[in-house]
């Protein structure tokens, strides 16, 4: 059975949904091992094991957390050489893509980003050109480095019970090359809502909210949804930039995307048009967003959203 590596950016007591998807896909393709991009305690190892990891690779003496990208590249390169892996799966994040990019140069290998599926023969399915085409692609040389979009893999109903802890292989990295230093990190403010890229439901607001995200957040909470935004709304400072959906923000592929007070510019559509169901609320009947909405409501979001939120709460009892 071929060895498949999964790059785990920040191991924690409970793996994120995205990490569990990576491990589930790897287990389907072969023998899954996790490469630990940060310190992992016994609880983290046990939960990664329960999610499918049958072995671990870590930097001897720990990975230099202040070095940007380059230390992780050295770790991944060493893990591939040690394991003889045929494929490496990484999250489709800024870090995941950059680590894959540089590791590919070192291993003279190919990278495919934005994967939504990987077959047994490592053929990758991915959307391109803002979701207007679906492409099948393959790596022809070296191990296949693949970055997987969140929400792409069906997770098993019940996680397998954790068995005996799998072994951790410690790798000597040596000099990891010139790297920028990370001097401080300001974590995203926790909202208590689902993480945008992984959420099943997203309610997004645009310039039409006119400074008040209250109605958007209210409907999101009634639905258990993440909150998204157009660039016009984040540029105006009404909500954090991390909420931006689109070409230069987060791309989402949820079951349901509710777009409120957003016109539907191409750069916004690029980030959400693969949603299963799209509902749009806009005052302007000619807004381009209506061209892709399964349900379009011509109306004032300040009226429609609170009514919908109240109705959901009423029906849920």
């Amino acid at each position: 059975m071929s060895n498949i590596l999964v790059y785990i950016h920040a191991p924690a007591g409970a793996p994120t949904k995205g990490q569990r998807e990576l491990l589930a896909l790897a287990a389907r393709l072969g023998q899954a091992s996790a490469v630990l991009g940060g310190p992992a305690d016994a609880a983290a190892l046990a939960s990664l094991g329960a999610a499918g990891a049958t072995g671990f690779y870590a930097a001897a003496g720990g990975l230099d957390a202040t070095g940007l990208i380059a230390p992780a590249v050295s770790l991944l390169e060493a893990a591939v050489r040690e394991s003889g892996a045929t494929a490496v799966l990484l999250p489709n994040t800024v870090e995941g893509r950059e680590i894959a990019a540089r590791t590919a140069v070192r291993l003279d290998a190919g990278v495919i980003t934005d994967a939504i599926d990987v077959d047994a023969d490592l053929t990758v399915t991915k959307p391109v050109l803002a979701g207007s085409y679906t492409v099948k692609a393959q790596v022809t040389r070296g191990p296949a480095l693949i970055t997987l979009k969140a929400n792409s893999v069906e997770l098993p109903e019940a996680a397998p019970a954790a068995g005996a802890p799998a072994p951790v292989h410690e790798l000597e990295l040596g000099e990891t090359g010139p790297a920028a230093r990370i001097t401080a990190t300001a974590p995203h403010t926790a909202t208590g809502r689902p993480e945008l890229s992984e959420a099943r439901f997203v309610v997004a607001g645009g310039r039409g909210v006119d400074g008040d995200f209250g109605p958007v957040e209210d409907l999101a909470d009634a639905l258990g949804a993440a909150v998204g935004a157009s660039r016009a709304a984040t540029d105006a400072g009404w909500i954090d930039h991390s909420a931006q959906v689109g070409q230069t923000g987060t791309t989402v592929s949820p079951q349901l995307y509710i777009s409120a007070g957003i016109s539907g510019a191409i750069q916004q559509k690029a980030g959400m048009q693969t949603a299963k169901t799209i509902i749009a609320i806009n005052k302007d009947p000619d807004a381009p967003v209506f061209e892709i909405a399964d349900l379009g409501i011509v109306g004032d979001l300040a009226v429609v959203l609170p009514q919908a939120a109240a109705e959901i709460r009423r029906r849920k009892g």
Partner: protein
Amino acid sequence: MSQNTGTPLNILVLVKHVPDVQFDRHLSGPGQRLDRKDSVLSELDEYAIEAALALAEARGGDKAGNTVTAMTMGPEAAANAVKKSLQMGAAAGVHICDPALAGSDAGATSLALATAIKQLGGFDVVLTGMASTDAETSLVPAQLAERLGVAQLTNLSKLEIDPGTNTVTALRVGEDGAQSVEATLPVLISVTDQANEPRYPNFRGILAAKKKKITTLTLAQLGLAEEAVGAAGSATRVLSAAPRPPRAAGQVITDSGQAGIALVDFLADAKLI
């Protein structure tokens, strides 16, 4: 790259000529290549050009010996991306142009670019956009840092070089949140669309650009074998491509007081609640 300490800076900005996102874009032919007519300078590269010009200006501009050079790789029409950079204020241009480059993936592209950068030499800063708007992989900036053996400062929403020093301090947005990052020259930088407000070429800039020089480089001049780039040199291959069926517009209703309820009925019918 030169180990220049402080003033002045040699800055190279990479620009790409890509199909205009405002039009329908198509893949076709045996390699499922992108139809490149109706191409323009990638919008996201305008932020890189602006960042390059601003860094040079902060050190006294071209009068103080700072240079901003714009470089592209692509078919003949790609020179237009360099021309627009010259109109915005870059001083000179380089165009890597060779038919054997067609079909290069990110790895082969970064190889050709890195080879040219090393040959031209002397850059303190190589600047790029956060992604091209065609393939949108964001792989090339990190691969260039690797191939050039310099630190990467990527996905920056803010950056400056402290006056009189050769340290770049910057803000990067990543998975963990906003990171403060720093590195000493030479560096590879990529900037997001949050980094600045790109300037428009003015009339004087457009006239001045006509006198600026664009150097064309072939693979032979770079000393690169044809098999090292293009489809042959690429470690990835597209097997097939299918246009996604266009999203059919659904029903549109006008709110007459009950649309919020209708929205919830729709969710219930679709078994979403």
